[in-house]
């Protein structure tokens, strides 16, 4: 099922959580809503589910397969919702939890007892919990609980599966395992799914498409590959992994100067720029022929334990530069503590420096007169009349 959002805004009291969102979720795809906390991603998910109503505007619409469902309640939208903290019914066993959505159906739609039993056990087998059907949620581990929550959401045969930080409260290892498992499940079932996460690694690994959100707005929509390698905005670049930031400016020769780094580029509108380089996009060179596109830095800390070698350099302007090297490359250019070497950015992203830091501060608070002032004005008006 395709989901289309048109002009969706949401204001809580005087806080604008979502600012005119237009989105399209493709049929059968697993889409991630990625963003820092407070970016409005959960609010957006809850609006899709119908747990939250968007601001009343004439042109704001939620379409499921082209049908307007803006005014439909949660129950009518046929969505499965998985909560961050599971929200399992604590007084019911695993079996009863999963069967619940089927048992409370109106008698016309309700499957027979045997059918419910079979369907529930099929789901429990799928989430690998069929041996624990009789347990209570309190007798399960976090990962198992989350799988029950997923089975419960799937039991009502939803057309859309919505997951709110499904692995947020699990430890790293279980998380990675469930992540792969979720991807496999999605490949088997092909239910249109949306999941909210603040973990960029999770989003990159699991989803078909990523929507990066920040301060109630959409920053970028794209495949994991696109958002990682072609970040549309500086925020996306910064949010998806470590970055080294160089403030600089462009001169007439279209060279970028940033401290002792000068770098040729072909942008020349705004002289003030930021050069963003990912740690793994550096070449470490022991000697160079000409000193273009390189700068010198001193190795400050070297961590060789791990999948790659992490080196912290400090350049002449006392900036900390993170570099990730493969073990192979590290063997070719062995750097020791205190060595001065040349660093050459292979890949980079250029962003214009903003004139003022408008977006840095949260300007989503809408100013409204206080209730007290309104009442005061009202009373004064009447006093004047009499």
């Amino acid at each position: 099922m395709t989901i289309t959002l048109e002009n969706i805004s949401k204001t809580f009291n005087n806080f604008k959580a979502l600012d005119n969102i237009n989105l399209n979720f493709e049929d059968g795809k697993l889409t991630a809503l990625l963003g820092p906390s407070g970016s409005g991603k959960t609010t957006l998910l809850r609006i899709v589910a119908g747990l939250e109503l968007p601001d009343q505007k004439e042109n704001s619409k939620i379409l499921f397969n082209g049908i307007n469902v803006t005014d439909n309640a949660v129950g009518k939208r046929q969505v499965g919702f998985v909560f961050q903290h599971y929200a399992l019914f604590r007084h019911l066993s695993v079996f009863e939890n999963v069967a619940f959505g089927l048992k409370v159906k109106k008698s016309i739609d309700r499957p027979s007892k045997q059918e419910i039993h079979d369907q529930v056990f099929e789901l429990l087998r799928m989430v690998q919990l069929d041996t624990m059907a009789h347990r209570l949620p309190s007798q399960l581990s976090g990962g198992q609980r989350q799988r029950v929550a997923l089975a419960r959401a799937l039991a009502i045969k939803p057309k859309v599966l919505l997951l709110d930080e499904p692995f947020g409260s699990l430890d790293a290892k279980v998380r990675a395992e469930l992540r792969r498992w979720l991807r496999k499940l999605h490949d088997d079932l092909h239910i249109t799914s949306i999941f909210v996460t603040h973990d960029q690694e999770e989003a990159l690994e699991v989803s078909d498409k990523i929507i990066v959100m920040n301060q109630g707005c959409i920053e970028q929509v794209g495949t994991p590959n696109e958002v990682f390698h072609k970040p549309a905005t500086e925020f996306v670049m910064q949010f998806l992994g470590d970055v080294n930031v160089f403030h600089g400016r462009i001169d007439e020769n279209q060279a970028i100067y940033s401290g002792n780094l000068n770098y040729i580029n072909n942008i020349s509108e705004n002289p003030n720029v930021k050069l963003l380089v990912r740690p793994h996009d550096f070449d470490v060179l022991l000697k160079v022929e000409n000193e273009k596109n390189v700068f010198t830095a001193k190795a400050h800390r070297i961590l060789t334990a791990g999948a790659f070698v992490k080196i912290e350099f400090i350049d002449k302007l006392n900036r900390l530069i993170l570099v990730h090297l493969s073990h192979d490359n590290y063997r070719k250019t062995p750097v020791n503590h205190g060595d001065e070497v040349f660093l050459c950015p292979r890949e980079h992203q250029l962003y214009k420096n903003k004139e003022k830091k408008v977006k840095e501060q949260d300007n989503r608070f809408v100013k409204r007169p206080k209730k007290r002032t309104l009442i005061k004005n009202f009373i004064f008006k009447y006093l004047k009349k009499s």
Partner: protein
Amino acid sequence: MYNINFDVIAQAAPQLIQGIKTTIFISVISSVCAFIIGLVIVFMRTMGGSLLKAIGAIYVEIIRNTPMLIQLYFVYKALPDLGLFLHPIACGIIALSLYTGAYISEVLRSGVNSVTSQQYEAARGLGLNKWQTFRLIIFPQAIRIVIPPLGSQFINLVKNSSLVSFIAVTDLFYFIYKGAVDDFRFFEFFIAGAFVYMTLTGIIAVIFNRIEKMFKLHGREARV
């Protein structure tokens, strides 16, 4: 020197037993009514619209903030002025139920409030209406939390039932007081009365301990 002589109690036993029967009768019926009232009020206050919420709140505040004796006399003496004549026992049951119902609704409300909002949302997501959500999800979880304080309310009800003797209901307290005054045997009769009330409330305490164990989730047999 005052001679303590419990034989007088034995002589008054038939009357006292009749009084105990009345007290039990009033207590049991009032308990059921009070619990139903409590349930209705808590449903109104947690799931209802703003009007129902307001009605529930006003009811609870009026009952909680007035003496039970006034409520009792109101039902017994003031309702006839409006043309409603009721048997004293019925008056006693009504007053006791209204009074305890308000307290029970508050106890239940504290339990309902302790169930997280996500449980409501999960239920809504599965397509349950308000009544189903309350009956199948919220109430079963809330009641487990509030069983101990609920027991205290029923114990209070039994003790408060002694007030109905003021409106000429021949309950246990009525006969205790009558026996004491008739024979000038206050000490014996009041000791005996206290003992009987303690036995009755003790039974409730035991029942509620059982219920608490019964409702405990751990080690419950599976229903698959």
